[in-house]
C-alpha cells in the first residue's frame, strides 16, 4: 500500500492537480479581494481588524504554494502548505455549519457560488487526500 502511495507518477499527478486547483482558486480571489474580504467576514471566525489582512495575503500564499507544486520547485513543501490551508478552511466550514450559517464560501472566488455545507466538506476532504499524496517523500 505504502508503495502505491509513494509511486512517483501518482505523487506527481496529485501535486500538479492540487497545484492547478490552488492556482485557479487564488487567481479568482486575487481578482476580487473585496469579495474575498466579505467571505472572510461571513465566517465570523477571526477578529474584525484582521479580516482585510487575511483577505489580501491568503490568496497569494495559495498562489505561491500552487505554483511550487505545478512547477515542481518545492512540490512537497507546497503540498504541506496546501494541506495546512485546507485543514483551516475545513474547520471554518464545519464551524459555520455548526452555527447554522449559510453563505457562499468563496473558496474558488465568487463565481463558483458553492455554499458552505457537506458538499464543500467533501470537496475539501478530496483535496486533502491529494495534499497527502503530494506530500509523500520520494523513495
Amino acid at each position, binding site marked *: 500500500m505504502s508503495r502505491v502511495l509513494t509511486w512517483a507518477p501518482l505523487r506527481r499527478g496529485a501535486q500538479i492537480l492540487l497545484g492547478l486547483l490552488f492556482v485557479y482558486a487564488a487567481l479568482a480571489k*486575487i481578482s476580487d*479581494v*473585496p469579495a474575498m*474580504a*466579505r467571505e472572510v*467576514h461571513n465566517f*465570523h471566525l477571526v477578529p*474584525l*481588524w*484582521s*479580516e*482585510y*489582512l487575511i*483577505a*489580501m*495575503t*491568503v*490568496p*497569494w*500564499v*495559495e*498562489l*505561491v*504554494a500552487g505554483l*511550487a507544486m505545478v512547477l515542481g520547485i*518545492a512540490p*512537497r*513543501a*507546497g503540498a*504541506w*502548505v496546501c494541506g*495546512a490551508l485546507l485543514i483551516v478552511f475545513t474547520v471554518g466550514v464545519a464551524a459555520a455549519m455548526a452555527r447554522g450559517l*449559510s453563505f*457562499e464560501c468563496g473558496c474558488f472566488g*465568487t463565481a463558483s457560488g458553492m455554499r458552505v455545507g457537506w458538499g464543500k466538506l467533501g470537496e475539501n476532504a478530496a483535496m486533502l487526500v491529494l495534499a497527502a499524496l503530494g506530500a509523500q*517523500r520520494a523513495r
Partner: protein
Amino acid sequence: MDERDREGTAATLRAAALIVIVGIVLGLAFNAVGLAGRPPRGLPWIRQPERMPSLEDLQPASVLAPSGMSGWLAGLDPVGAAWAGTAPSRATVADTARAARKPAVKPATKAAKPAVTKKTTKAPVSVARIQPQPVRPAIQKTGTPPPPAVAIPLPVVPDLDQPIEVKLANVKRFFDAGPTAAVIVDARESEEYAAAHIAGAISLPYEAAIEKPERLAPFKNLGRPIIVYCDGGDCEVSKDLAKSMLAEGIRKVLVFTDGLPAWKSAGYPVETGATGAQR
C-alpha cells in the same frame, strides 16, 4: 527516521515557511500598489468597525420632543401612543394625509362597529400590524369617541452621501405609514428572502445588485426613503447594498442594522415566498 529523512523534513519545512512568507509579502505588496494607484483599489490595512450616523440622532429639533426626549419619543408608536393618551402633548399632527392611512385615525367609525372591534381583538395578524395596545372596553360600552387622532410625524431623513442607521421603532413607523412612506429592501439572497422577510419588502440581493447595477435603477428618484436590511448582527450586505445605492446616486438610504431577527422578535409581520406582497 534516519538522518537523511530528518534533513529532508527540515528542508521541506523551511521551504513551506518560505512559501508562506513569500505569499504574505506578495499579498501586502500587491495591496500597497493598489492603494497607491489612482483611483486607489486596495483594501485598508486594518478593518475598522463602520460607524453610520443614526437617524434618531439626526432628527431636527422641530421633530423631536422638547428637552431631549428624542430617545423616548422615537420608541413610541404613533398609533399606540395616541390610544394610550400618553403622547398627545408632545406629538403634533403634522401630516393629516399620512395619518389618514393609519387605523388610529378612524376610530370613531370603527368603534361604532362592534364587528370590527371584535375582529381586531381576535385576529393576531391584524394586531401584529400595529403595536400592542390596551383593550378599551369603556369605549365599546359607552360609545365615547376615542381621543382625537394624533400622529407623530415620521422621522425626517436627511440627504446624506452615506448610509444612515435606523432602529426598529422607526422602521415600524415607516412600515405602518405604508409603501408611500418608505421602500423596504431585503439585501439577502433570494433563498433567504423566500424563507422569511419583512412583509412587503422587495428582494434585491447584494450580489445581484453588484453583478447587474441596472437593478438599482428603479430605486432612483423615488422621493421616499429606502430601508435596507439583512440578518442583523454582523451582517454586512445591507450596508454594502446601501453604499452601492448611494454610489448610483440614490439618496435617503437607511440601514436597519438589527435586521430581520429584531423584526421577528418584536412579532411584526413577516412573509414567506419568493415574491413580496405589495403593501
